[in-house]
């Protein structure tokens, strides 16, 4: 390597350019969010497609969970098949608060079915609205941190981690499903008729509020993940994904980092669960079945993992496809979904966005026309050559 001595100078500090792109990104995200939050409902409402607004709101809240999945799978390489736990916990936390919106002294109806006369102790804090808001995030986060710590501490990773999260999911499902006397078992909670801020949850005004809130939380979640993945922490996550043992020999303890992102993504799933619950009107242990948690992963995979925009895009696309297809041909949805898993993994491993980034845009631009063939692409991309080209021109 003779280039050592004659190497070009290091590029100047990129800080000013960085801040400019950041400003541009903030503006773009803000505009898109505003369109989704205010313009789109008006348009859809005018077109008589009011149902779609509610659907979109639910998908947007699912996208919050997808961001969390992307954070741990796309960036850190941990495939969780148990995020339904955290989603459901968030949903239950909010639903329990809503169940308790009763005249003083009464307890929710279902308790009487099972002969329970006194409110179980763990329900009591859910009388408080602030506590509920905290619990929606905190309970999933804490549980994820505990599970994560116990698993990561022992260097259980890869497939083993995925299987254990799935087992944890089954355990939580069994627990929620089996405990009628504590949390109404299989039936879960209906939230539609429960009052909130003086109106039933299904009231159009409240639903609009939840819709806007979903958009805002999605933007917030995006900003959070963007912040986490862009700095040194983000690079360390990628390092852990690519070569975890090596990270240890560089003097980092991966356990802490993995527990941290796992907990953050669980918190996001909790928020998603709460918002999804109030917009769909019900939460049951069914949202902890195996299929739903794996579905979350496929949203991210379709959009493109390790791209946050991809996670959001994939969620909304796949879910709309699901709604349309299962409205028309309910029996074919599973075939379609199965094929989607196969296709994404084998043909589009980087998802739609990854494909666009790598060669999709080029393909679209030259659609139908013969493509330019470059004989020595490696030479043209070589940084030394580029540098010389620039300097010669000066």
């Amino acid at each position, binding site marked *: *390597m003779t280039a050592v001595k004659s*190497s070009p100078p*290091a*590029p100047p500090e990129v800080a000013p350019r960085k801040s400019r792109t950041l400003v541009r990104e903030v503006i773009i995200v803000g505009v898109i969010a505003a369109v989704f939050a205010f313009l789109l409902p008006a348009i859809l409402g005018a077109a008589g497609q009011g149902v779609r607004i509610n659907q979109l709101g639910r998908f947007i809240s699912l996208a919050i969970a997808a961001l969390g999945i992307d954070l741990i799978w796309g960036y850190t390489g941990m495939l969780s098949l148990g995020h339904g736990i955290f989603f459901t916990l968030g949903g239950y936390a909010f639903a329990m608060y809503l169940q308790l919106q009763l005249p003083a002294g009464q307890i929710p109806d279902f308790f009487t079915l099972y002969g329970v006369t006194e409110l179980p102790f763990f329900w009591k804090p859910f009388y408080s609205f602030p506590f509920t808001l905290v619990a929606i995030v905190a309970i999933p986060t804490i549980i994820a941190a505990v599970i994560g710590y116990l698993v990561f501490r022992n260097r259980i990773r890869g497939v083993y981690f995925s299987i254990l999260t799935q087992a944890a999911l089954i355990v939580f499902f069994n627990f929620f499903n089996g405990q009628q006397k504590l949390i109404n078992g299989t039936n879960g909670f209906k939230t539609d008729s429960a009052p909130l801020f003086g109106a039933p949850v299904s009231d159009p005004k409240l639903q609009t509020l939840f819709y806007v809130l979903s958009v805002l939380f999605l933007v917030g979640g995006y900003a959070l993940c963007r912040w986490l993945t862009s700095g040194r922490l983000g690079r360390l996550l990628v*390092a852990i994904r*690519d070569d975890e*043992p*090596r990270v240890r020999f560089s*003097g980092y303890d991966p356990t802490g980092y993995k527990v941290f992102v796992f907990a953050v993504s669980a918190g996001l799933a909790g928020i998603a669960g709460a918002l999804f619950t109030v917009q769909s009107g019900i939460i049951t242990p069914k949202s902890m079945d195996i299929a739903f948690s794996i579905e979350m992963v496929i949203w991210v995979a379709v959009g493109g993992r390790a791209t946050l925009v991809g996670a959001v895009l994939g969620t909304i696309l796949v879910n709309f496809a699901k709604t349309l297809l299962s409205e028309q041909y309910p029996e074919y949805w599973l075939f379609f979904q199965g094929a989607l898993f196969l296709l994404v993994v084998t043909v589009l491993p980087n998802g739609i966005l990854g494909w666009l980034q790598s060669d999709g845009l080029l393909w679209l631009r030259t659609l139908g026309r013969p493509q330019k063939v470059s004989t020595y692409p490696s030479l043209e991309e070589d940084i030394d050559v580029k540098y010389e080209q620039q300097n010669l021109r000066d």
Partner: protein
Amino acid sequence: MSSKILEIENLTVSFDGFKAINNLNFSMDEGELRVVIGPNGAGKTTFMDIITGKTKPTEGTVTFKGRNLRPYKEYQIARMGIGRKFQTPRVYQKLTPRQNLELSCAQHKNVFSSLLGRSAPGERRTVGGLLETVGLVAKADIPAELLSHGEKQRLEIGMLVAQSPDLLLVDEPVAGLTDEETENVGSLLLALAESHSIMVIEHDMEFVRQIAKKVTVLHQGSVLCEGTMDEVQNDPRVIEVYLGHQEDE
């Protein structure tokens, strides 16, 4: 005693009864450049695994700067000042060389300082200097997966130095390199040896002769002999197990 940076006493490691390291005694002075050679299966890499905490010894002690390493984990040992370069270059493929070095260089290696801390100007200067030392300035901002094998080797040595360790463990640094690159790495190591203690594992005898002052020969998990290159080369036992074996091939 304080001049010894690394001391290993009666070390034994067994995997299901197979003794990869057998009653090994070894010590290194502060500031020394030591080369460890030995035929395949002599236990060289296991030896490094033990020092860096990847494998725990079945018996015996490893003492680094007067501290017994047994209770510490890999990352703690790394923070104490032992850096390791692997046999095949292990750099973070999706990160650029600059980011690779920055990660190794960071002073505070816990979650919240990674999240909130910005890289100090001092660190940035160190990284810039290191990029120059390992000759990767021109390729500082492309993903490391695009680097050639030799460049990755140098990058990993750079990452090692960025950790500012007191003891560098370097496993086969010139495997798969051209002669010219080998010489480059050799002089890089010699330059580093002025301020660090270094232990090198190597097969390439030409290279060993270039850098070695003192050589340790491992055989079947124990030290066979120790001395200067000439002494070692003329030792009949070494010729029998190692060099003689090589001539057969």
